């Protein structure tokens, strides 16, 4: 609390400059953080990984396993056995074309025609944290065939 309504002293120029710099920094930060919107490089990268995973899950499950997030792969192997076999048996839907991609920082959701995938951005790139997901009730977690623990 420093509620001063009086302009008893002329504000220092240094203070004004610092304030302006602070606001500019906040604005830049928000622009970087909040507007990771349409057409960004990360959206394209997430879209690419999702479609590659969807195709590989049907035709080349072992390479699709390389696109799973570590915890998701571990959970799959713990509950169903070796990754490639488990993925083939999981019966993920034919995904179809991408309808929508939303990226927020290190997290992304890719809606395909017949599937929804959740992804996270690791040092190695986007990895699938959950796939074969269908919406349940509003604002409830999606029901996913494959997901982390």
């Amino acid at each position, binding site marked *: 609390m420093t509620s001063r309504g009086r302009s008893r002293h002329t504000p220092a120029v*240094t203070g004004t400059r610092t304030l302006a710099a602070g606001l500019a920094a906040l604005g830049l930060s928000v622009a970087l*953080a909040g507007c990771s919107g349409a057409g960004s490089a990360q959206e394209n990268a997430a879209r690419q990984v999702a479609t590659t995973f969807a195709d590989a899950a049907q035709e080349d499950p072992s390479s699709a396993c390389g696109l799973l997030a570590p*915890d*998701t792969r571990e959970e799959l192997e713990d509950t169903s056995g070796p990754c490639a076999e488990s993925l083939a048996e999981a019966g993920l839907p034919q995904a179809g074309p991408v309808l929508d991609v939303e990226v927020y*920082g290190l997290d992304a959701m890719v809606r395909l025609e017949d599937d929804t995938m959740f992804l996270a951005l690791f040092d190695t790139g986007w990895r699938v*944290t959950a796939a074969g997901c269908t919406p349940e009730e509003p604002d409830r977690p999606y029901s996913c065939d494959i997901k982390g623990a």
Partner: protein
Amino acid sequence: MSKGLREQGLTIAFVVLLIAALVGQALTGVAFYNEQAGDSGLPLMSLLQYVTSSQFAVDVAENWQSEYLQFLLYILLTVWLVQKGSPESKPLDQAGRESDEKQKVGSHAQEDSPAWAKVRGWRLQLFSRSLGLTMGAIFLLSWLAQFIAGRSAYNADQIKDLKAPLGWGEYLAAPDFWNRTFQNWQSEFLAVASMVVLSIYLRERGSPESKPVGQPHTSTGVEG
């Protein structure tokens, strides 16, 4: 300390404190984020990633907007509202925008008055309200920043929880946005009310925010 530094001491001190607090917030914030992400097997953030993230931006902006709202309301309400006994208040009979003579504007301006205080018209009107307008503009921009960054941070959490992200309208109606807003506002209003009331009865010798130690409790608009 040189005279120049001493004369800017208050500003310098608060800017240093601001930077130190922001550094502390960034270091503890990235540690907290990574603690939670690590527990869930999700990717960790570097410090640079964190300070440019929506998670950091919303935490900064929600506090900034409430501070500027506090100043804005204080600046404006103290024009018309008074509090008997408080050095935060004007004298009881001086509520309002006050006369040109008291405000030293137009023909009542001094030789060293600001240039726009000496003239009539829109420049005087604008300058006469420039403090409130600026505080109000910063408040609105900070609140907008909270909204934009808050939605992004909220949606990142939604995706981590395998939930659908919210659109702009949905987030505007979401508890997250308003809860972040109100929890900051209430603390600011409490702080102002406390300062107004406590300064009636308590003193801080030498502080311009306090009445002189020997000043009666009933004195209003007197500063040390």
